[in-house]
């Protein structure tokens, strides 16, 4: 094991510092949403019944897909350290494929839920007098939807960084920055999955 050197502020690469700051900002945004969701969840027991209508299997598979993609990103980072362009390409494409799988499975879930009347405004539920319960689905779609947008953003960032690196043969540190962002997308899902799917 080589000894890890402690960096001073000036020695930290700019991209890494910027992405960590961005991640801090994103965590406050999702943190706000999650706190609001938890407070509501504690207040309304009936939200547990609504949670049973989510597809736990799809959620579990998606969790594995994202965790695997995080492994791929780490491999891409390792390739970037060795400036191995072919390897970078391979691992980043695998990550992007995982992102598409995640979004595909999520769309399948959304389709099923919408077909059963669990929509974002939840008009059917309100009409049945289940106004409180309709807000579970509002939170569900807002949180997972916002997370989905981050998945798309992360995949796009990885794609453009990879193209830039393989074309210009420089900026290898950007792989690490985009990878950090991808890990954040993963970690947010790790928070959302038990909160939304598993607690009944």
């Amino acid at each position: 094991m080589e000894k890890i050197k402690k960096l001073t502020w000036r020695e930290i690469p700019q991209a890494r510092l910027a992405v960590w700051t961005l991640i801090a900002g994103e965590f406050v945004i999702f943190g706000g949403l999650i706190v609001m969701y938890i407070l509501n969840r504690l207040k309304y027991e009936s939200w547990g019944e609504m949670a049973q209508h989510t597809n736990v299997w799809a959620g579990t598979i998606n969790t594995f897909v994202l965790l695997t993609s995080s492994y791929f990103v780490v491999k891409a980072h390792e390739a970037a350290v060795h400036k191995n362009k072919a390897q970078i390409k391979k691992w980043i494409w695998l990550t992007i494929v995982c992102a598409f799988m995640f979004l595909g499975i999520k769309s399948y879930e959304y389709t099923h839920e919408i077909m059963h009347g669990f929509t974002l405004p939840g008009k059917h539920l309100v009409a049945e007098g289940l106004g409180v319960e309709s807000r579970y689905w509002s939170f569900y779609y807002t949180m997972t939807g916002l997370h989905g947008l981050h998945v798309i953003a992360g995949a796009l960032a990885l794609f453009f960084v990879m193209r830039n690196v393989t074309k210009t043969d420089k900026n290898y540190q950007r792989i690490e920055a985009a990878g950090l962002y991808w890990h954040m997308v993963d970690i947010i899902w790790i928070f959302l999955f038990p909160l939304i799917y598993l607690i009944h």
Partner: protein
Amino acid sequence: MNTHKKHGFWHRYFFSLDHKDIGFQYMLTIFFMVSIGGFFAYVFRMHLAFPDMKVPLFGLVTNKDYNMLITNHGLIMMMWLALGMLLAVAGNFLIPIMIGTDDMAFPKLNKISYWIFLLSVILMIASFFMPKGGLGVGWTLYPPLSVGDFGYNTPYKSFADRFFTANTFVLLAIAFEFTSLLMGGINFFVTTLNKRAKGMSLLKMPMVVWMINIANLLFMFSVGPLVAGTFMLLLDINVGTGFYDAYRGGDPLLWEHLFWFFGHPEVYVILLPPLGILAEIISVNSRKPLFGYKFILTLTLIAAVLSTMVWAHHQFVAGIDPRAATVFSIFTIIISLPFAGIILAYIATLWKGDLRFTLPMKWALGAVALFTLLGGFTGLHLGASVFDIYAHDTSFVVAHFHYTLFPTVIFGSFAAIYFWFSKFSGRKLNQTLGNLHFWLTFIFFNGFAFPLFLLGLAGQHRRIADYRQFEFLMQDPLPLYRKIATISAVILILSQFIFLFNFIWSLKRGKKETEDNPWQANTLEWQTSSPPPHGNFKVYPVVNYGPYEYNRPDKDKDFTPQNEI
């Protein structure tokens, strides 16, 4: 080092990557927004003093107009003037050059931040021209009023009917503005930590750089939940969700919590950069080291932490638990202590100093005096829930608010402009016009805001357009107070034209600044030419001294530039 090249108009004002040019772009955009906000203030003040009068340049003010005017005056001044001027403009102009580097860490990101800011300005202006008119729900955008008639039990409305409303556009404008400021904040933070000149340790940074960065981090921490909340309010309006809909178990109070969890730290976000600017100006003009650099820094950090625990003092009458109200009262009163400490440190800096009453110094002293004596002092009263419940939503609150924000935001910005103008433009502002501008602003600001205290205690409500139904508000001397306030406000607004003329004229025709360091200051921006070249320094400075080492006994002159050997 980059070579300095003259760029054309489009290149300079739209595609420049230089931090000084981008700062100037922000500044011009904000001047434009302020002129709108100021015009709105003029119209509704005239209406309040002289009801039924056709206000020149506007016409008769209906109740609906009044609501729209106060809402947009508040939003523009808080969101675009205060946040924009003190985070974006001050950060862009000052941070890179004061820490001795050529530009921001990410110049392209900086440019994109400005474009998003411009987009938010366009959306805000567009909201005035929506089919149903401008937004008139108060600048705090409380639901259910801000959700409007889009709630659950109204007849179906098409998406276009919901989207093309002032509610949607204002919320989008705010969301884009936050995005822009967050991107700028990341840029400032990385620049400060990563690009400091050689030898500039964190504790050798000028106070204003510290303050802007602490303000940015505080902004980043407090705005997150409101970003999510804005998104939810947009969904409530446009899609029909029920996040704030009490019928579905939603909570209108939730918005108030989210808004003020941002809104109260926000007043410290916009207070800290002016405090930093005042630290620079007071230290230079009293030829003394800033009293207690680390002391001020510690107090600022304490205040930043405390400021996230006081938000519910805006909601004492919103039906929160009285026990919680007590807790928030206590924290609110405690938070005045660190700021009292900072102000005392400034006064200690003045103590036995070799004072120079230059123009920026006058603005700085004016800001300290008004902010402390009337703004901060009435804040203590309003912080206590017992008094706040009595004074709530009266013009006492308006007066308190203007006495805290006007001295810091406006006086602080003017102090900074009069201080740094010659450095960044290479020309001097006219001093006679500057003095006239200062005294008119100082006198008529007091003439405008002080009567509002008395009116507020007499019961004048801030959001009632036609108060004539209340007989007690028609008794002498209250109409006289209203007239004094209004006439002062009009003169206050008119006297800003002196500044505008001075600014534009001096930019083109002003006397050339011959010295690099006219104030004999220590910080690095004064050690390069005026105006600085593209890339700021011909030779990158190496820092050996702290920013405030005035009157060192071992030196002949009374200042020691930070990069002196």
